[in-house]
C-alpha cells in the first residue's frame, strides 16, 4: 500500500502576523459546547458597558440643551456626574476585558509551540478581544434603545427628559468603535503582563503587594483636600460658583486618587488580619483569595469608593437642600434645588448598578478562572455552599471596607455639615442610607449570581483540569 505524502510548502514566504491571525481567528472562534457561556459572558458584559455608557452620555447631553441663565449650572453638574460615573464605568469595562481574556492562555501556548510569532499571538489576541467587544457593543446599542425611554421618565426642571435621552445617531457607531478599541488596548496591556512560551503562560511578576508608601501619599492628598475645604468660602467670594465647583471637582478627583492609592494597602492589611483570625473554612479561603492579589480585590469594588464618597456628599447635599427655604426663590431656582437631589440619587444609584455589573462580571471571570480549584475542592468533599460562601465573602468583605473607608473620608471632609444634617434632616440621611443598602444588596446579588456557574463547572470537571 502506498502512502501519499502531502506536498510541503518549502520556500513559501511566511504570512504577515495580522494575515495569519485573521486566518486563525475563525478556527479559534469555534468553541466547545461547554465554552458557550465563556463566549457569551464577555459579549454580554461589553453590551452592558456600551448601554450604560450611552445612557450616561444621553443623560448628560440632555443637560446641555438649555440656553437660559441656569444652563451653565446644569451643564457643570452634568459634567461632575459624568466624571463621577466614569470610574465605575471604566471598572466595568476592565472587568469585561478581563472576562474576554480568560482561558486564552493555553491556546496561545499551543500556538507558540507550533511556531507562531509574538506578532501573530498579539494580533490574534487583539482581534479576538475587538470582535467580542464589537458584538457586545452592538448588543449594547439595542439595550440602550430599551433603557433610554425608561430613564427618560426622570423629571428635571419640571419636565421628563423624554426624547432628550437620545444621543445623536452618529454617536452610536463612535461608541461601538470606542468600546472595541478600548477592549483591544486592554488586551494588549494584558498580554504585556504575561510571557507566552511554548510550555505555557506565566506572569512576568508577582502580583503587587500594595506598599505602605501609598498610605503616606493618600494622607497627604487628604490633608490638602481638607485645607481646600476650609478656604472654599474665600475661593467662592473671589471666583464665584465656577471657582467653588472647580475646587470641589479638584477635591473630588484628589480624594478619589487618594482612595485608589490607599485602597489596595488597606484591603491587604485587613485580609491578613482576617486570614489570621479566620475560624471557618469560608472565612479563611475568602481572606486568602483577597491576599492573592489585593489590587484586584480592590479594583473589583473600587467603584463603590467613589459612590460612597459621593453618597456622603449627596446625603449632606440633600439635607442642605431640604433645609434651604424655597420661599423667595423663583421657580427655576426651586427646580434646581430639587434637581440636585434627584441628580445625586440617580448618580449614586447608577454608580451602584455599575459596580454590581462589575462585580458580577469579575466574579464570573474569577469563577471560570478558578474552575480547577472548584473541581479540586469538590473532589475533596468541600460542600458547594462553602465554595459559594468563600467567593461571596471575598467580595463583600472588601466591599464593606471600601464603602466604610470612603464614606469615612467624606465624613471627615464634611464633618460639621454631616453632624448638622444627621440631627436636622434625618430623613435625607435615611434616604441616602436606603440607596446604599439597596446598592449593597445589588452587589451581593451579582456575586451570588456568578456562583451559579459552579455546578456547570463541576458537571464537566475534566475541562477544568
Amino acid at each position, binding site marked *: 500500500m502506498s502512502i501519499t505524502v502531502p506536498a510541503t510548502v518549502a520556500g513559501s514566504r511566511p504570512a504577515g502576523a495580522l494575515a495569519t491571525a485573521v486566518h486563525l481567528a475563525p478556527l479559534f472562534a469555534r468553541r466547545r459546547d461547554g465554552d458557550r457561556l465563556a463566549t457569551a459572558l464577555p459579549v454580554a458584559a461589553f453590551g452592558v458597558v456600551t448601554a450604560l455608557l450611552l445612557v450616561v452620555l444621553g443623560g448628560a447631553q440632555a443637560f446641555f440643551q438649555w440656553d437660559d441663565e441656569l444652563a451653565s449650572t446644569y451643564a457643570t453638574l452634568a459634567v461632575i456626574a459624568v466624571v463621577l460615573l466614569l470610574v465605575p464605568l471604566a471598572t466595568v469595562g476592565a472587568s469585561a476585558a478581563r472576562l474576554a481574556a480568560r482561558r486564552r492562555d493555553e491556546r496561545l501556548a499551543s500556538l507558540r509551540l507550533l511556531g507562531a510569532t509574538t506578532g501573530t499571538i498579539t494580533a490574534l489576541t487583539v482581534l479576538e478581544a475587538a470582535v467580542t467587544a464589537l458584538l457586545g457593543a452592538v448588543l449594547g446599542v439595542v439595550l440602550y434603545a430599551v433603557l433610554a425611554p425608561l430613564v427618560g421618565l426622570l423629571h428635571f426642571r419640571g419636565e421628563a427628559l423624554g426624547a432628550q435621552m437620545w444621543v445623536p445617531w452618529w454617536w452610536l457607531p463612535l461608541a461601538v468603535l470606542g468600546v472595541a478599541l478600548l477592549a483591544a488596548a486592554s488586551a494588549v496591556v494584558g498580554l504585556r503582563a504575561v510571557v507566552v512560551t511554548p510550555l505555557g503562560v506565566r506572569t512576568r511578576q508577582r502580583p503587587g503587594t500594595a506598599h505602605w508608601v501609598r498610605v503616606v501619599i493618600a494622607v497627604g492628598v487628604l490633608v490638602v483636600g481638607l485645607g481646600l475645604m476650609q478656604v472654599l468660602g474665600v475661593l467662592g467670594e473671589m471666583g464665584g460658583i465656577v471657582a467653588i465647583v472647580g475646587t470641589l471637582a479638584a477635591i473630588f478627583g484628589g480624594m478619589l486618587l487618594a482612595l485608589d492609592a490607599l485602597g489596595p494597602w488597606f484591603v491587604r492589611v485587613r485580609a491578613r488580619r482576617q486570614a489570621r483570625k479566620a475560624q471557618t473554612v469560608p472565612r479563611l479561603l475568602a481572606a486568602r483569595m483577597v491576599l492573592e492579589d489585593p489590587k484586584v480585590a480592590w479594583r473589583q469594588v473600587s467603584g463603590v469608593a467613589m459612590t460612597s464618597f459621593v453618597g456622603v456628599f449627596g446625603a449632606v447635599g440633600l439635607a442642605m437642600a431640604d433645609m434651604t427655604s424655597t420661599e423667595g426663590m423663583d421657580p427655576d431656582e426651586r427646580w434646581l434645588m430639587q434637581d440636585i437631589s434627584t441628580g445625586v440619587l440617580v448618580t449614586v444609584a447608577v454608580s451602584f448598578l455599575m459596580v454590581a455589573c462589575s462585580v458580577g462580571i469579575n466574579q464570573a471571570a474569577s469563577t471560570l478562572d478558578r474552575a480547577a480549584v472548584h473541581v479540586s475542592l469538590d473532589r475533596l468533599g468541600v460542600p458547594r455552599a*462553602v465554595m459559594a460562601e468563600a467567593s461571596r465573602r471575598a467580595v463583600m468583605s472588601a466591599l464593606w471596607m471600601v464603602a466604610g473607608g470612603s464614606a469615612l473620608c467624606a465624613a471627615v471632609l464634611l464633618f460639621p455639615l454631616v453632624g448638622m444634617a444627621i440631627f436636622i434632616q434625618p430623613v435625607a440621611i435615611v434616604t441616602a442610607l436606603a440607596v446604599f443598602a439597596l446598592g449593597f444588596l445589588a452587589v451581593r446579588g451579582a456575586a451570588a449570581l456568578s456562583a451559579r456557574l459552579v455546578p456547570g463547572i463541576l458537571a464537566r470537571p475534566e475541562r477544568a483540569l
Partner: protein
Amino acid sequence: MTPLLSARGLTMQYPGGVTPALDAVDLDIGAGESVAIMGASGSGKTTLLHCLAGILRPTAGLVSFASVQGPVRVESLDDGERSRLRREELGFVFQQGLLLDELTALENVAVARMLAGVPRGQAEAEAAQWLQHLGLAGLEQRRLGELSGGQAQRVAIARAQVTGARLIFADEPTGALDSATSVEVLDLLLAATQQGRTLVVVTHDADVARRCARTVVLRDGRVVSDTAAPAAAASAAEVSR
C-alpha cells in the same frame, strides 16, 4: 472477609462516547491492601478511581463501601452525601495534589479538619504534627509555589491522612516527580497501609505497581488481570505500553 470497597458490574458511559469507559468491572478491595490500577492511556483507570471514590456516578453497577457508620452504596448517594463521604472517610493524593495555591502548607492540611468542624487552633496543631511526621517541619507557612513537587505531594499525603481516612485514592501521585522523590512519596503512601489504611493507586509506573501488594490491569474499560505483585507488575507494564 468483607471487603472495604466493592464494585459490581461497574459501567461508565460518557455522554457522546462511542464505547464505555468502564465495562462491567467487578472489584473487591480489602482493608489494609495496597492496590495498583494499571493500563494504557484511555483504558479507564482514572474513571474507575473516580467511580470508586464517589467523584463520578457510574452509568450502571454498584459500589459498596464499609463506612464507619455501616455499609453504604456509594453510587446511590446524592451529591451532598458523596461529598461528606469524600470529606470524612476518604483521602486523595492526585498528580497535581488538589492543593489550594493561595493557602499555606499548614492551612491546606488544616482545612480538611476545619471542614469537619474542628476549631482552627486544634486543626492546625494536628496538621503541624502530620507535616512534621512527613518531614516538612519548618515549611508550614510556605505557600505551594514555594514548595518542590515532592514537598507538595507530602502536603497532599498529610491532608489525606489528617482526617483519619481509612481509604486513600492516589492518581499518578509520582507522575510529575523525579525517580528519587517518587520513591520517597511512595514510601510515605505505603507506610499509611502499615497503619491500617487502604491504598488504591492509579499509575503508569511499573515500579510503583511492583511495590503494591496487588495489581489490577484494565484494557478498554475491562479488568484483564488481577494478581498479586510483583509478578503482575511486570506483565502489567507490558500491557501499559
